C-alpha cells in the first residue's frame, strides 16, 4: 500500500508487526499521547511510512494489554485532558529484543541483496 508523496516518490506501507517496534522506540524519549506519537513517527520517517493515524490506537491498546506500555490521564500542551503512554520495564526489554531482531533482519536482507 503506497501513496504518492508531494515529491512524487511513493511512500512505503509498514510491514506487519513493525508498528509495535516503532511505537516502543518513540516512547523511549518519554510519555506521549496518541497524537504526539503519530506526529513523531511521521517526523522521524520524513513521512515515508504511510499508516492511518487511527491504526495507532489498536496497537497502543494491544501493547497496553501485554504490559509493554502503561497509560495515565494527564494534561496536554494546550491544557486538554489526554491519555499519555509510557514504556514499562517489560516494554523496554521487548524493545531491545525487537531491535535485535530487526538488526538481524536487516543484515540478512543486505546479504541477499549483495550476493544475488
Amino acid at each position, binding site marked *: 500500500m503506497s501513496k504518492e508523496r508531494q515529491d512524487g516518490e511513493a511512500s512505503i506501507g509498514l510491514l506487519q508487526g513493525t508498528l509495535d517496534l516503532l511505537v516502543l522506540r518513540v516512547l523511549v524519549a518519554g510519555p506521549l*499521547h*496518541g*497524537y504526539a506519537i*503519530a*506526529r513523531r513517527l511521521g517526523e522521524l520517517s520524513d513521512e515515508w511510512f504511510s499508516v*492511518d*493515524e*487511527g*491504526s495507532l*490506537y*489498536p496497537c497502543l*491498546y*494491544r501493547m497496553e*494489554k501485554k504490559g509493554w506500555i502503561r497509560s495515565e490521564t494527564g494534561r*496536554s500542551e*494546550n491544557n*486538554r*485532558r*489526554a*491519555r499519555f503512554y509510557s514504556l514499562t520495564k517489560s516494554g523496554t526489554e521487548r524493545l531491545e529484543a525487537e531491535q535485535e531482531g530487526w538488526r538481524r533482519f536487516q543484515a540478512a536482507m543486505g546479504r541477499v541483496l549483495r550476493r544475488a
Partner: protein
Amino acid sequence: MPRLLSALNEWLERRARMREERQFHLERASADLRALGLTAREAKRMARIRFGSRRNSQTGLRELGGDLRGLANLFRAHRVAASLWFQPIVLLAAGALIFAVSPSPREIAEGLLGRTFGAEVREAVALSVYGAGPASPGITLTELASLQSMATVTRVESFGPHQVLAQPVKGITLAAITSEAVARTGNRGFYAAWILRQPGIDTTAAKVVWLLAALYGAFFLYSRLHRRVTLPWLLYAGSMAFLHSAVSIVAWALATQLWSRAPWSGKSWQTPTTAGLSFSLLAVICLLVAAVQCRYWWLDLRRRCPVCLDRLLLSQTQGDASRIVLGAAITESVCAQGHGILIESRWSRDFRRGHSLFSGPTCV
C-alpha cells in the same frame, strides 16, 4: 446487581476512552492543519481522512474490550451470571420485552391483573325465546329462516336449539331488534340481549401452569434440599417461581394475541375441532416453555449456597465413576463467602456448613 452495574460501567468507560482519544486526536490534527492555512472545514475533513476508516475505531474497540465480546468477557470476569439478581433481571427483561412486542399490551395487563379499566364491548346479539327449556320445542327452521331475513341484524347463526346469534346493524337498539324478530316470526316470546366482550386475555391455561410451577417448586424444595431450609431460600425460591410463572403467562398471552391476528385464525376458530387443536398446540408450547424455565430455575437453585444464595464455585470431582460401590465419585463445590462446602454424589447431597477448602476432612 452491583456486579452487573460494575461490568456495564467498566465497559462504558472503555468505549468512552476510545471516543475521547479519537476526538482529541482529530481536534489536534485539524488544529495543526488550520495552522498550515487550511480552512476549518477542510482541516476537519483532512484530519478524518488521515485518521483512516471506521475500521480502525472498531479494531481499537475490540482490542480495548469495548465491543460486545468485551462485554461478555466482563460479565464473566465479574461473575454476573453467578449473582443472585441475574435471573430475576433476565426474567423481568423478558417480560418487559414481551409486553413491548405485544400487539395489545393493555390486554395482557388486564389478563394478569384483572379487568381494572376499559369498557365492555357489545360484540353480538343473542335472540332467545322466553321460557325456553329442555321440554320446549326450541326455535323452528321456519322461525330461523325469518330471523335470517331481518334488516336490523346480519349474520344470523343458530347457537343451540333455543338461541341464535347475530351481528347488529350499527346504531340499532335492542328494542328495535326485538320488535322486528317478533313481527317476522309471529312469536311474541322472542327477546334480544347483548353479548358483551370482556377485554382481556383468557389466562386459564397459563394459570394452570402457574399452579403447576409453584407446586413443582414447593415439592422439590421440601423433599430434595437440605432439611434445614432457611427463610432466604424460601423467599428466593418463591419469588423465582412467581417470576417464571408470570413470564409464562405473559408469553401465553402474547401467543394468543398473535394467533388471533394470524390470517388463518378466522377460519381456524370456526369449527370446534380446529379451535381445540389450536388451543392444545398453544397450551403444549406454553407448558414446554414453563417446563424449561422450571428446570433451569431448579438447577440454578441446586448450585447455590443455602446461606448466602451465591453460586457455588470450583467444582471438583474425586473418585472414580467406575467404582460405584467402593469409591464412588463425589463432587465438591465451595461457597466463595466461606459458608461451607457442598458434597454431591450419585445418591446424596450434603452442604457442610463452616467447612472450607483448608479445614475438615477434605484438607490435604
